[in-house]
């Protein structure tokens, strides 16, 4: 049991003095005051401020909620004749995400190795590479896509580039975190027995991370199908163009068709990928 004198007091405990309890054997222990009230007060203040800031007003929803049910009702009556127009952008979306995921995952592997602290011992290089990774990773997909659309022109190529950059960021982050938790003793043993850094990595670390890497790749492919479907909104090809157009024309039955086909595609791909990932682990 901690002695009362050895308990270090944080700022909170200094303001709200801990309760002193005398036990039956004469020892005294300190019981810190509960922090829950303080946390709740903070949350309420933040909530209040956010409500004012965003103009939160549930009355609007109650008043105009009928609009939403009307739109949703139309979305759930997809227009079957519109299917013929959905095929080609749908396949474009799938193609964009296959290509983008593949290239992005390939690029992520060497970069993830370079930003793992246990393999790259050069502190300066490591932090420069990390900063670049963080910039790439935190940019929202749509922003990347709209910049790509400006640079490469409207169309699927811009979308593919956006997905490559996006996949690269996500997979590198996940991968370097798993590389850093890898068992490094085999690596050191190989280095000690005269293997070069690359040889040691290839035969000691790579087999350990390969299943994780592949499962990250599949996972990112799953995400990319969803992400690719909205890229068209900024002109980067795929289903997003149709989504934007249908909503613009208030043709919610057509929108329903687009969403239904997207849903079926995502469902099939997620199940295949989940099956493959369960085989990997």
């Amino acid at each position, binding site marked *: 049991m901690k002695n009362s004198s050895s308990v270090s007091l944080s700022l909170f405990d200094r303001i709200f003095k801990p309760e002193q309890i005398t036990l039956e054997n004469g020892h005294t222990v300190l019981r810190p005051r509960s922090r829950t009230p303080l946390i709740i007060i903070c949350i309420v203040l933040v909530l209040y401020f956010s409500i004012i800031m965003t*103009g939160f007003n549930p009355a609007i929803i109650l008043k105009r909620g009928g609009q*939403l049910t009307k*739109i949703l009702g139309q*979305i759930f009556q997809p227009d079957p004749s519109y299917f013929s127009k959905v095929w080609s952008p749908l396949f474009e979306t799938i193609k964009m995400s296959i290509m983008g995921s593949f290239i992005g995952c390939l690029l992520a592997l060497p970069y993830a190795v370079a930003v793992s602290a246990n393999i790259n011992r050069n502190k300066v290089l490591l932090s420069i590479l990390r900063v670049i990774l*963080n910039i790439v990773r935190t940019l*929202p997909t749509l922003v990347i896509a709209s910049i790509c659309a400006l640079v490469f022109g409207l169309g699927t190529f811009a979308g593919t580039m956006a997905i490559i950059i996006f996949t690269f960021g996500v997979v590198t982050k996940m991968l370097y975190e798993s590389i850093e938790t890898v068992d490094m003793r085999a690596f050191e043993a190989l280095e000690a027995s005269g293997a070069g850094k690359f040889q040691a990595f290839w035969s000691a670390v790579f087999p350990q991370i390969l299943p994780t890497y592949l499962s990250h790749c599949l996972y990112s492919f799953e995400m990319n199908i969803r992400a690719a479907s909205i890229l068209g909104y900024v002109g980067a090809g795929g289903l997003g163009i149709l989504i934007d157009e249908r909503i613009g024309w208030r043709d919610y039955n057509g929108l329903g068709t687009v969403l239904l086909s997207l849903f079926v595609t995502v469902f099939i791909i997620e199940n295949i990928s989940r099956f493959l990932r369960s085989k990997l682990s």
Partner: protein
Amino acid sequence: MQYKPTVIEKYEARPRVWWLYTLIVIILAILLGWSGSSVEFRGVTAKGSEVASGIFFGLVRPDFSMLFSTAKEGVPYLLLETVCIAILGTIIGGILALPFAFLASYKLMPKPVAFVANALILLIRTFPSIVWALVWIRVTGPGAFCGVVTQSICSIGMISKMYITAIEDLDVSILESLDASGCTSFQKIRYGIIPQLIPNFISTIIYRFDINIKDATTLGIVGAGGIGAALIQCINSRRWTMVGSFILAMIILMLIIEFFSTRIRSKLARGQ
């Protein structure tokens, strides 16, 4: 004498699934060949290189007057609005997800109820958040409020999925021992269930907040408030120094929030 294979022999006799590898390579090659047909490089647009260099210089030399102005068009105000959208959206989503999670747990509910609730969750998850935002705009009109509503709905899917895992991982033996020591149902919930669930739930909400901050910047592009709208306007009108200051501010904000959320979540996971 028993025959003992050497290491080399063992290694040579390792199971080989070369047919599997060949199959994977062939499938990948077919997929890539198929998808390569539509993704063709048509060169950089006439203004493409100008755009690329503009963004680069914008990031290096951001517009500092925008970064520190307190006006409504300034970066701090827009960032604050984005954060507020994400906070409200996440918390409302977290609360709305509670009934969904309990209804969709196959362990607690009869099968038909759980199936319907699961279908609803799947439905919410399928619509991209942009579609939700565009639909909600028709109801609430453009602005931050639309962003809040969109995020609350979109968060339900993931949060309730993670709630369900937490609920199904409950340690039931604690309830039995509470039962044995003569606790009432209320006491069992208060001391047996809530302490187990709360850390998981809070951790989920913080994780979703992380995602929502990123999402909130995107939602602005369709007019749902926050920093996205201003950013996309600047990109389209090619004011690179302003783009640079927006992007820099967003990156810094997200890194700060990610840092704190990872710390809080690892503390929660260790039970402090």
